[in-house]
């Protein structure tokens, strides 16, 4: 079935550095999302993105976070600077529409370890 690819699968960086998480969404999808999961627990919504703009973001989406998808390439989540509490698995998801019947496809996640 359709796949969302995330690169890299694991990223280790020092606190204060910048990190960019990359997502290759399903090709005909228009809505993109980032979710954060700590220790295999609750998935928490960070942000959704459509037509080059952030549509909605949660309080977890700090000022140090930014998202973009330049020219239909990767949908990226950038954290600058990183903090220890940013350590988590970040899941990218995409859907064709944002309607409730629309299936949301998730990637396998990028595990971010901030030291």
């Amino acid at each position, binding site marked *: 079935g359709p796949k969302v690819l995330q690169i890299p699968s694991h990223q280790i960086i020092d606190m204060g550095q910048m990190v960019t998480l990359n997502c290759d969404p399903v090709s005909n999808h228009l809505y993109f999302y980032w*979710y954060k999961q700590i220790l*295999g*627990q*609750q*998935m928490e919504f960070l942000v959704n993105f459509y037509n080059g703009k952030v549509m909605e973001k949660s309080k977890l989406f700090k000022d140090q976070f930014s998202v973009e998808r330049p020219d239909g390439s990767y949908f990226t989540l950038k954290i600058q600077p990183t903090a220890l509490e940013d350590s988590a698995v970040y*899941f990218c998801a995409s859907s064709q529409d944002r309607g*409730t*019947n629309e299936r949301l496809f998730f990637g396998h996640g990028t595990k971010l370890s901030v030291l």
Partner: protein
Amino acid sequence: QQQVRQSPQSLTVWEGETAILNCSYENSAFDYFPWYQQFPGEGPALLISILSVSDKKEDGRFTIFFNKREKKLSLHIADSQPGDSATYFCAASDTNTGKLTFGDGTVLTVKP
């Protein structure tokens, strides 16, 4: 206040039994409830979903029972198999947003 709650936190059943996973929610505006299955090291995958206009949804061995008045739903996995061992997340959203609110998950173990 957590918007979506799941119980139990973990559940162990024998192969062939029916596993029952519970979920409740707070926001009356929620009208779409998907269940996701997640294996270690992978992303969540949509298993089955229900809209609030229905009280039951069946797909093979998986059935959702939904009680709008009590804001509760449950996922029944009939004839459980060891391959069903995974974490199951109940989620909810409303029509106006694509944002899903997830519960904490139930870790299901099916023993052969």
